């Protein structure tokens, strides 16, 4: 196993103005990883080759699919614009990403070409124009996505984001923060801070808003915050407690949990009509709604048969159908983007772990090792699961590939992190 530790210093402009340090540890399985070389040449007024090379290398190495080789063995051929497959083969690389930054009369651009060294052919070649507003991290993640998808056939996720909650317990009162960050941990911004509990963040289908639960009025209430403007709106007016928000993929509805006659039930809020429709009706707890892909079905956690298990139901009609039967506890289901799998919190008597459940095959597979793991969400390409775990009694985030090839830990010094949710 290869270990990479990235230390990212982030200044959160908060109550404290102190530095919080985001630590990302990557355990990467080298066996089976594809050998690859990356080399970026040239520079412009604003951009240097090293910056691009580092970001792309971290992306691809962190995916678990690639082993990045040292290109110094073939360095004499690197600045040569010609292809030299015979020489590159000696490096042991199967693939070679070769890029150049150009500054032609003030017009800056980066051109990159992916070579299949074994087949001695060009796989893809692109040019991206760089202007003064170009974000080097975004451009680099875009390149990583193209390379990753060209080789693996799987959609890249290097330009996606995560949202999560952190708690700073160093002060007299806990400070809760809702963060949005790039998946590699950079560009982390605390978009909302409160001395009252924050929980259950969830992305809108277009990733432009986040809904979450805030206790600012001394009860759980759902708020929707627009990322670009910071504007906040309470989902339901009045003094009603509401929790566990879930955005329908068609953006027309928001499912949530509220109590009726002493029982916790699932409701659906219609954004257009402002009506709230009751979806479930059982004695006990129904919560943690998760929408089906067509915005017609809802998966949810219910204890109607004793222990918590996952059920599904059409939100406008029909009866609830039990989905999970393994173990004594299955909760907080998150649907993969292809609709085939649920990631969930599972307990079979050996602690609360993350499991993936195949809806079609009715097969459950545990993918985490902790005893207090929770809040799973799939990556947009369905190949990884992000969840919260505990390390020496401290909350950390973990991203793991479904096959266990790679595991990333994200830790924030001095603060507990939890409830991560991957953007769409």
């Amino acid at each position, binding site marked *: 196993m290869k270990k990479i530790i990235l230390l990212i210093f982030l200044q959160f402009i908060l109550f404290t103005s102190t530095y919080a340090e985001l630590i990302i540890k990557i355990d990467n399985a080298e066996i089976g990883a594809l050998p690859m070389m990356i080399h970026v040449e040239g520079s412009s007024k604003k951009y240097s080759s090293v910056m691009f090379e580092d970001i792309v290398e971290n992306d691809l190495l962190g995916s678990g699919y690639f082993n990045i080789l040292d290109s110094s063995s073939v360095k004499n051929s690197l600045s040569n614009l010609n292809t030299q497959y015979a020489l590159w083969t000696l490096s042991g690389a199967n693939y070679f990403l070769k890029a150049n930054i150009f500054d032609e009369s003030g017009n800056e651009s980066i051109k990159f070409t992916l070579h299949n060294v074994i087949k001695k052919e060009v796989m893809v070649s692109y040019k991206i124009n760089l202007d003064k507003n170009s974000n080097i991290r975004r451009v680099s993640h875009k390149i990583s996505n193209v390379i990753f998808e060209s080789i693996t056939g799987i959609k890249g996720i290097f330009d996606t984001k995560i949202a999560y909650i952190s708690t700073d317990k160093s002060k007299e009162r806990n400070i809760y923060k809702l963060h949005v960050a790039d998946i590699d941990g950079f560009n982390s911004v605390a978009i909302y801070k409160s001395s009252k*509990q924050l*929980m*259950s963040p969830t992305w809108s289908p277009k990733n432009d808003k986040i809904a979450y*639960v805030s*206790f600012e009025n*001394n*009860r*759980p209430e759902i708020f929707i915050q627009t990322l670009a403007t910071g504007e906040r709106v309470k989902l339901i007016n009045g003094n009603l*407690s509401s*929790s*566990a928000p879930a955005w329908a993929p068609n953006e027309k509805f928001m499912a949530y*949990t509220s*109590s009726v*006659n*002493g*029982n*916790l039930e699932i409701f659906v809020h219609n954004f257009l009509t402002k009506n709230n429709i009751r979806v479930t009706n059982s004695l*006990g*707890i129904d*919560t*943690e709604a998760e929408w089906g892909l067509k915005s017609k079905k809802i998966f949810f*956690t219910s*204890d109607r048969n004793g*222990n*918590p298990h996952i059920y599904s139901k059409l939100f406008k009609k029909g009866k609830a159908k039990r989905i999970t039967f393994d173990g004594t*506890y299955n*909760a*907080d289901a998150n649907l993969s983007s292809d609709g085939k799998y649920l990631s969930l*919190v599972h*307990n079979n008597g050996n602690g*609360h772990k993350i499991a993936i459940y195949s809806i079609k095959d009715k097969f459950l597979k545990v993918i985490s090792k902790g005893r*207090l793991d*929770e*809040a799973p969400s799939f990556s947009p390409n369905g190949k990884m699961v992000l969840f919260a775990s*505990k390390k020496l*009694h401290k909350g950390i985030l973990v991203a793991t590939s479904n096959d266990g090839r790679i595991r990333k830990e994200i830790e924030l010094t001095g603060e507990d992190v*939890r*409830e991560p949710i991957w953007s769409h």
Partner: protein
Amino acid sequence: MVVKILVQNIVLISIISLITGCSMTNKKDPDVIVTTEPMLTKPTEGAVDKVTSADSINLDKIDEKEITLGSNVIYYDYNQYSVDKPLDKKIIKKYSEYLNKYDEAMVRIEGHADERGSRAYNLALGEKRSETIKEIMLINGVSKNSIEVVSYGEENPAVMGTNDETHSLNRRVEIVFSSTGK
């Protein structure tokens, strides 16, 4: 049988008489040293010792409800929210009676869960625990306007730690008097 009880009573009376008799007759214990020195000595010049009077100690009156109602915490088994134990039923009954007696009183039923499992489910579990107690209070005749329900899920543990003992102390409902009026 009767004889045996009589004998026991006679022995008991004799023992009591012996004890009380001793205390009456032995007023002056020869081992007790009686000091003849005055307890308060004249203060040395320049030094002033303040004598604290009992009158200067404030007595803060304890709120009646805290004395009469006793425990305000109900504990639960893992993933459970039913109230089965007689002691817990007694707590709810006492609070119900108090709320029925004092119209202006108002309680906040705060539900909690231990740290294990999903946070959103634990929030619902805490709320279900609180709601169950609220339902019992309503059956006991308490006005719904006197009861406020809130769940904190696993966020406000009573004790820190990750073991069976701390978990069992954190799975709880606390009934607290609310400062907000109706």
